[in-house]
């Protein structure tokens, strides 16, 4: 069972929820796909961490073979190639590794070379396998790292919790596309509703089963809750705007391991989601 936790903006509570769900599940894999700023490891403090570099393919020019036809320059949507003074220049940092330039080159002057864009770290914290994707600063996209993380996790038959990047862009799509269930985390503000709307559209587009977790709930009107009622969206639970929880979290403590009431909160969320997934697989096999 793969549960993806996502939200339209950062700081909503994706890491809080995915870390605590994994901790509540005991035997689980926690995957941090927020490769631009992964922070789940701060809570789990994994041990025995193995590091694997992740690279992408970028073009390498053979200047002897290049005849200056510029087909590659014209092809590249990202303008990663320029032809100056009879010489082809490749801008490695701008290249998105689509491989198109290599395909269109009639002279076979372009070949692939590897370029490291980041790494995957795998460690263990109690019974939770903690996998973290790290994208090097300035790289165009973390998708290759997320692909690799999720490919490898599909070979492991354990409950998997995917801590997604914020927003609803390609890296989030990559993170949720094979998820059995999506938990959308929402804040009780109008801005929160806007961001919830973004991920709501996304999970509908990807036809993923989903529910909303309302975070930072106060005793007042909750616009995110209203949005769920209006759109007939399942509310999985409510996390209070709570000083104790905030303090634990900002001290990088896993709340379910520190206080029974939080263990109950996240265990009940886990049960609910597990039932939802079972229900989905029986109704939409």
């Amino acid at each position: 069972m793969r549960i993806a936790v996502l939200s339209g903006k950062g700081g909503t509570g994706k890491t809080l929820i995915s870390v605590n769900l994994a901790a509540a599940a005991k035997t689980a894999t926690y995957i941090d796909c927020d490769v631009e700023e992964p922070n789940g490891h701060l809570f789990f403090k994994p041990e025995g961490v193995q590091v694997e570099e992740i690279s992408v393919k970028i073009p390498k020019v053979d200047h002897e073979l290049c005849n200056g036809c510029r087909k590659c320059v014209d092809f590249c949507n990202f303008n990663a190639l320029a032809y100056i003074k009879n010489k082809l220049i490749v801008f490695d940092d701008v290249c998105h590794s689509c491989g198109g330039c290599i395909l269109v080159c009639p002279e076979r002057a372009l070949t692939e070379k590897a370029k490291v864009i980041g790494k995957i770290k795998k460690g263990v914290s109690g019974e939770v396998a903690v996998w973290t994707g790290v994208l090097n600063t300035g790289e165009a996209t973390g998708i290759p790292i997320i692909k690799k993380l999720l490919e490898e996790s599909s070979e492991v038959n354990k409950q998997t919790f995917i801590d997604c990047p914020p927003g609803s862009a390609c890296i989030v799509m990559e993170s949720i596309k094979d998820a059995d269930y999506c938990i959308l985390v929402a804040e009780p503000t109008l801005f929160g509703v806007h961001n919830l709307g973004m991920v709501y559209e996304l999970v509908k587009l990807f036809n993923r089963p989903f529910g909303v977790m309302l975070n930072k709930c106060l005793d007042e009107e909750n616009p995110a809750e209203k949005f769920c009622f209006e759109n007939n969206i399942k509310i999985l639970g409510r996390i209070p705007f709570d000083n104790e929880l905030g303090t634990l979290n900002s001290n990088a403590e896993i709340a379910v391991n520190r206080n029974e009431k939080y263990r109950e909160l996240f265990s009940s969320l886990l049960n609910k989601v597990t039932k939802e997934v079972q229900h989905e697989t029986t109704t939409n096999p």
Partner: protein
Amino acid sequence: MKIAIPVDEKTLESKVCVSFGRTPYFLIYDVETKDSIFIDNSAAASTGGAGIKAAQIMVDNKADVLLTPRLGENAADVLKPAEIKICKTITGSAKDNIDAFIAGKLSLLDEIHAGFHGHGGN
């Protein structure tokens, strides 16, 4: 000698565009013939690498000098090997800047910014 300037409008009186890579037009002014031509900047709508493509347009139009308020690192990496001189514009129209350049009153642009997308630089 050909002078290129990113401009907001297709007139000599136009203001210089604040962006090199995403300017709507380039003015190419020929100092010998005094001809002005305006070209559409096909790099303006690029997904990325607009500076690189705009610099390629400078090279392809055989500009000798570029007058611009600022320039990114990638664009500079195209213009420098192409031996295109880069000068910093002053307040005023495109025409004012051409006159100032011809009178030797424009200084070389020495501050190249690292771009706006985290590429290169840091």
